């Protein structure tokens, strides 16, 4: 009796062969696309950063000049905040933070908040969210201009107690039928400002952690 001729063994071999071939194919395609995927991810992050701070305003490599902070006291979220530091000829210009608002209607809202060295907001963009389409999603720039309303604001403009939506007595608009999403975003931006105010000095002196963009 030839053990190799047994149908079960033969079928096993055949399956293994198919698996091997599939793995080989995937490895090859992965090798072929890897560089480009990394490049795409980088480009996207850079594009987002540049929406907030235009290219002429800094001349360092934003993507590698980053630090990771974990400060639940300010950010109320366990995810680390990546801070991209923009400098012009080594002088600090702005900090761009990926803040996570924990209190969206459907969980986390990730956003990018850019704060100039003078403490004013340069701009805010939503990175990802799961808010209800049509109700909460006007926080995205593609849906409405609401997010642009942060530009130029600071801790003194408006005063801290007005850093919330109008429904709570604040200065920021909510949307028809949706208060929770804008409220969460306003809070997260405010938290970023508070963090920046407190850590402004040390923030730019820390050595860069290596630029892992995602």
């Amino acid at each position, binding site marked *: 009796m030839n053990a190799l001729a047994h149908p079960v063994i033969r*079928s096993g071999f055949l399956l293994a062969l198919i698996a091997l071939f*599939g*793995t080989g194919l995937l490895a090859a395609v992965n090798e072929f*696309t890897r560089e480009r*995927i990394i490049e795409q991810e980088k480009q996207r992050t850079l594009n987002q950063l540049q929406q907030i701070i235009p290219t002429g305003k800094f001349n360092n490599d934003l993507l590698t000049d980053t630090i990771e902070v974990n400060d639940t006291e300010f950010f109320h979220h366990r995810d680390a905040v990546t801070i991209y530091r923009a400098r012009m000829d080594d002088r600090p210009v702005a900090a761009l933070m990926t803040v996570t608002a924990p209190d969206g209607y459907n969980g986390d809202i990730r956003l990018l908040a850019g704060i100039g060295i003078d403490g004013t907001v340069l701009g805010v963009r939503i990175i990802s969210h799961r808010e209800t*389409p049509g109700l909460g999603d006007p926080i995205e720039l593609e849906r409405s201009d609401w997010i642009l309303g942060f530009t130029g604001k600071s801790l003194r403009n408006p005063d801290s107690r007005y850093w919330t939506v109008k429904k709570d007595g604040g200065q920021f608009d909510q949307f028809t039928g949706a208060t929770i999403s804008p409220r969460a975003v306003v809070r997260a931006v405010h938290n970023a400002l508070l963090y920046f105010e407190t850590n402004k000095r040390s923030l730019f002196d820390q050595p860069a952690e290596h630029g892992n963009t995602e």
Partner: protein
Amino acid sequence: MNTIKLKQIFADGTWRQNTGLVVLLGLCPLLAVTNTVINGLALGLATMLTLMVSNLSVSILRGLLKPEIRIPAFVLIIASVVTVVELLMHAFLYDLFRVLGIFIPLIVTNCAIIGRAEAFASRNAPLPSLMDGFATGLGFCLTLVLLGALRELSGRGTLMSGADMLLGEWGSHLAVTIIPEYSGFLLAMLPAGAFFGLALLIAARNAWETRTSETQAQTGITMVAKTHET
């Protein structure tokens, strides 16, 4: 003879046995991504490509596959193909990849694909199998586009928005606003709207089928080659 058979396969895949409207397989992606035409089209094309490659591979290997290992073999083949499609989209259609997200890897779980592998490709030669994959994929893709158009138009008043994600810069000219100053119809954009939309499409298809078969009966035309199953 051969072309007649291929024509039949084409008609089966796109109309008579349309995955989305008749067989009702693969409804999860069908309902989930059809909020715009472009999303539907992109997932439809990805599914079509997967169907063609998996059908072709299964058909080529059909002589070797013993009945007891055919299902795991199909799964291996389909999973490999889908992952390749996913990697390629990640690299070359990055924006679209971000929009479709989890639904690209989930093409694996689209029963239509393993269904075609089992019901057709494992019993037929490579060419008809390729044709079957193409036709089934096209039928699915058209359903996605149609449902996407229905929902995008009624939900947002636009058509083809985001075309640049699939086609590059010039695609942005294809985006048209049909109803300006439209305040939007939320229900159409929500998952519930997808069910309503699909129901309307199925109803429309059935009405069409009933009418054509009635007219045929009345005028007494006997369709020899094209007998309808339904």
